[in-house]
């Protein structure tokens, strides 16, 4: 029963992520493993058609690399510091990246 459980159930997790990815401005939501960059979950329009599987992978790879280098930069300025939020605005898109303390980090591409 949801009332007593402290953590989310599988369904709740799915609906939570579905809600974000169904927001009008959100194109896609990808959750990566922070250490290896492997894709844990992905949803949204760029993940919708089967052919785009490679595209998601490419996106994920690029984002992962970007996060790594950002991490390096932050770590270089202060060892104790850690990355909390990345927002990247481009002419067409916006990326919201939240790196976790735990392995995965999610990403939303919007607009």
């Amino acid at each position, binding site marked *: *029963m*949801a*009332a*007593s459980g*402290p*953590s*989310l159930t*599988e369904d709740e*997790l799915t*609906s*939570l*992520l579905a*809600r*974000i990815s169904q*927001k009008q*401005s*959100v194109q896609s939501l990808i*959750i990566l*493993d922070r250490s*290896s*960059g*492997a*894709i*844990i*979950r992905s949803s949204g329009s760029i993940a919708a058609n*089967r052919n785009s*599987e*490679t*595209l*998601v*992978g*490419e996106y*994920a*790879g690029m984002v*992962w*690399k970007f996060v790594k280098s950002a991490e390096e930069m932050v770590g270089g300025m202060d060892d104790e510091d850690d990355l909390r*939020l990345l*927002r990247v*605005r481009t002419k067409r898109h916006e990326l*919201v990246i*939240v790196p*976790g*303390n*735990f*392995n*995965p*980090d*999610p990403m*939303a591409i*919007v607009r």
Partner: protein
Amino acid sequence: MEQRKAELIAMKAKLVEIKRRNAERQQSLSMSRRSAELTFPHPQSSYSSRESIEALVDSLVGVGARPSSTGPMMGMKSSRPNSVMSAAESSFSDTASPTMHSSGGVAMTPESTTPSPLTMQNISIAPLTITYDAPPSPVREIITYSREVQTAEAWTEPDDEDNDDPTSRSRGSDEELRERIRKEIEEELKQLQTDESEQQIDGQPGGATNGGVFARELTDEERAAITASEDFLDFIERSSKVVERALDMEYDVLADYGLGISAEDEEQSGRMIKEVAQFYDERWSKKRMISDINYSPKFPELLLASYTKNPSAPHDPDGLVLVWNMHMHHRPEYVFHAQSDVLTARFSPFHPNLIVGGAYSGQVLLWDTRAKSQPVLKTPLTGSGHTHPVYSVSVIGTQNANNILSCSTDGVVCGWTVDMLAQPQELLELTTPPPSKTDDLSPTCMAFPHSDPTYFLVGTEEGTIYPCHRYDRAGAKAGVEPRIAYRGHAGPVMSVDFHPVRGPVDLGDLVLSSSVDWSVKLWKARPPVATTSSTSGITQTATPILEFSREDVVYDAAWSPVKPGMFGLVDGAGQLEIWDITVDTEVPIAKAQPSSRVGATHLTKGLNKLAWEEHDGKRVAVGGLDGTVTVFEVAIDPPRNEEWASVKRLVGSKDTAGK
């Protein structure tokens, strides 16, 4: 013998020649992915010299004297140059075709087995350094690749490595190296995969082609293991909130104000009340009614709403408190549960993490935003506390000494300490003073003046408002003050609100009450000391100094926290009205109605509660039967000093006129 010697010399010469060529070739290889022309001659040359080498080896074996020293060396190292070459070979072959990768290595072996001892003598330093590089990364799958890159690594900077004192290389640099290696692997794999995916565009799905940079895709089990872990869920919970807040943030830092304004903004700007946000959650708000709203005293963007039960979802908790964030519209910041309908809830003014609530079951509940959704403390269902619904709770006192005061419909008022809800600290039973037929008193609401924590007003179901004392004091007993009653309402009183004291003139004795008799009334509360001087035994009746008749039942009315003469009210027709008695006492200065959600009927339009944001008093939140919280922005001028005086004057004139 002479002939043999000559032969040997000739062979040595050949050997030297071969060595030189080999060295040349290695060098050219080390320059890596140059054009193929450069590398072509070498296989040729090596083939041409092959026979002679074989002969040489044969002869050497035949002589049996010299190879004894080189033999073990060769045996030991032969595997290394193998990989050196195959790696180097593949490093240029993979640009052409990645599938060549393995075959390239195979092709090299026959050639390299024999010349390798010879090369070895030449470049023995390189393998030496390689052994230091050798500790492969712990991931098994990557080992093949790391070897490949290791050698490439050695080739690119053999000079540096040579100059280094091998012993000085610490673990740290190993880590660094591993990191670098991993990156290069990614590069290569990416290249490989893009090539591959081009080739097998309709080939095997999944598996090898995950299309990404990464060698392997997570298996379903791994994925399940990750998604099921507590850490992961916790992380998703937190980070998804961050993402939603980020997405809902309306202010655009890149805004260019030179580009013109949209027409909608202009249309809105002329009005006094503007709807700014609506909070509704499909999962939680559905089919529930809002029973109370309260703004956080600490964080002006947070507000809570308490909800009654959803009759169509028996498995969901009956009572609910949702904390909404102005920056996150579609999802509550926190969800708190209760076993019974929550009828009232508020943030503790002294502790921003705590939320106090009253339930239909008579329980007083305490939630903590640092804890999970269950209440951290609650009063027991049976025994010494309330046994009837609690419609009103207040947190009274000071930062260091505060109590929760709760009031149930059977007339019991309890005081609790915030850390112990097992037993009430004080218990007071309110009864209607003598002249009435019964002594039952059923309070619907309760309000404390800002100046005096020992005295309060209760609004009752019969329509009278009674002052009450918490403690015995000179000339008065704890409980309902028998000498005065505020009569005027003909129906149950829905709200009582003391004027907030925040200005040059003390208006703290002004009380606003609303009732289902379609009216809001303004009272001047008599200070409790003054009542002691009047003759005891006879109940004085105080009458309202102002009445505001409305067109529907009024469910809530509350003073603006900043403007002395302003208050807001909500009614059963779903209207929010803003009044200012310094401007007009007959008509509201502004009216608004929340935009209805799709599917809402007139039956669910009614508004139950209203709450002002207390910091600047510019926002007011309303909520009602349809479970939607709507926040309006009220355009107000900063209060002027004359307004305070004018309210005082108005109240004074009405007060004396009434007597």
